């Protein structure tokens, strides 16, 4: 790979073509500036804050640490592509209901990270939740409301599972 070749990304279920981007551009830059996908937020550009979190072929990643051209052909899922049913819907609704959103800048990244976490580890305890979400920084809430929201989702889903099992 060198100059501005053309490559394709699958963003939130849609094929998107990128052309003329700089070879060194991060996935974050290409999503926001070339493709207008503003569901990923741009804050530190250093992999530290998690505002730009996406699922890359199903794995949680900070899109500012991923080379866009290296995601050629990969499936990129932002908060907007997580879907409107099931877990992702529950996470979003519960964040609102539990006051886990203040300025909201960290929220898209958190919703992606929490959805990924609860998919992998539905019964994670509070320590594991905090550790698993340490890659996402929130300047407003102090995290208490965020953890409370995640635990509320866990409770609801446990109830649901019990009901389904009966």
């Amino acid at each position: 790979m060198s100059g501005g070749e053309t490559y394709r990304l699958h963003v939130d279920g849609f094929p998107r073509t990128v052309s003329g981007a700089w070879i060194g551009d991060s996935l974050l830059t290409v999503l926001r500036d070339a493709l207008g996908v503003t569901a990923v937020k741009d804050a530190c550009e250093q992999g530290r804050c998690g505002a730009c979190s996406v699922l890359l072929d199903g794995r949680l990643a900070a899109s500012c640490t991923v080379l866009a051209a290296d995601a050629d052909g990969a499936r990129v899922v932002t908060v907007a592509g997580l879907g409107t049913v099931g877990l992702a819907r529950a996470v979003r609704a519960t964040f609102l209901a539990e006051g886990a959103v203040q300025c909201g800048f960290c929220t898209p990244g958190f919703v992606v990270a929490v959805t990924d976490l609860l998919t992998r580890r539905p019964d994670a305890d509070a320590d594991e939740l905090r550790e698993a979400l340490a890659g996402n920084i929130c300047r407003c809430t102090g995290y208490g409301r965020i953890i409370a929201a995640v635990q509320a989702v866990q409770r609801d889903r446990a109830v649901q599972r019990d009901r389904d099992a009966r």
Partner: protein
Amino acid sequence: MLAGARESGTEVVLLSGGTDLVPALRSGERRADAVVALRRVQELRVRGAGADSLTVGAGVTYTDLVGWSLSPGLARTARVVGSVQIRNTGTVGGALGSARPAGDLLTFLTAADAEVLTASPSGPARLPLARFLAGGPAPGAVVTAVRLARPGGPQTYLKIGGRQAAFPAVVSCAVLVDRLRRSLTCAIGGVGRLPARMEEAESAAAGDIDWATGTASPAAARRFADLVTAAAARIAPALPVGPRESAEYRWHAAGVLAGRAFTRCLLPAATPDEPT
């Protein structure tokens, strides 16, 4: 391509996960005219076990290592790297390429006497980690894997620093006990330019350990910690100091971590990362 490009002045860079390189390209700290992306090279993503050694491909991520029961020490080291996002993306090859002074994996591999496997236009090569780090890879070389001995006893890894998810360690410490060879190895990162072995403390420990039971006394742990602090203070050249990371702080932290790691591995009540 790499070797040829270097002669022509074109900046060709190797890319693995990108956690170090991509932010550095963005900030202008690194430059690239062309990128060789290794992430999809499946051959680099293999992990293998021989009769006495373990081989970890350069494309293996920290997340891949977290649950690896064949090397509880590597698994523990991987578990304390960065955040989920970083562990999912960052790789073994990138850790060697970046060679951070307190790199978690680098510290562990230094204590493990690891070897680095490389591929270059002049063919494959295998060299001790210290030599690899001292000379840097040959021009045009790609790290393909690291190789280390199967664990021969308890191993642990400890580090200290700011918010783990966002910042690499200030001081790091790996301790590996080998009951068959009756040896203990220890590496300290974050004091010098690269992680360093604590040879004097290692040989004192070998004499202090009761090899019949694989245990040692609290007094031996204290002596070990003191020897590590003293050795850390002799590492030259030391890293430039920051406002919250004076040289004295790092030497002290090195001793504290080493004492804890020793205790975890060798004091009966402690819980080391035992091989399973």
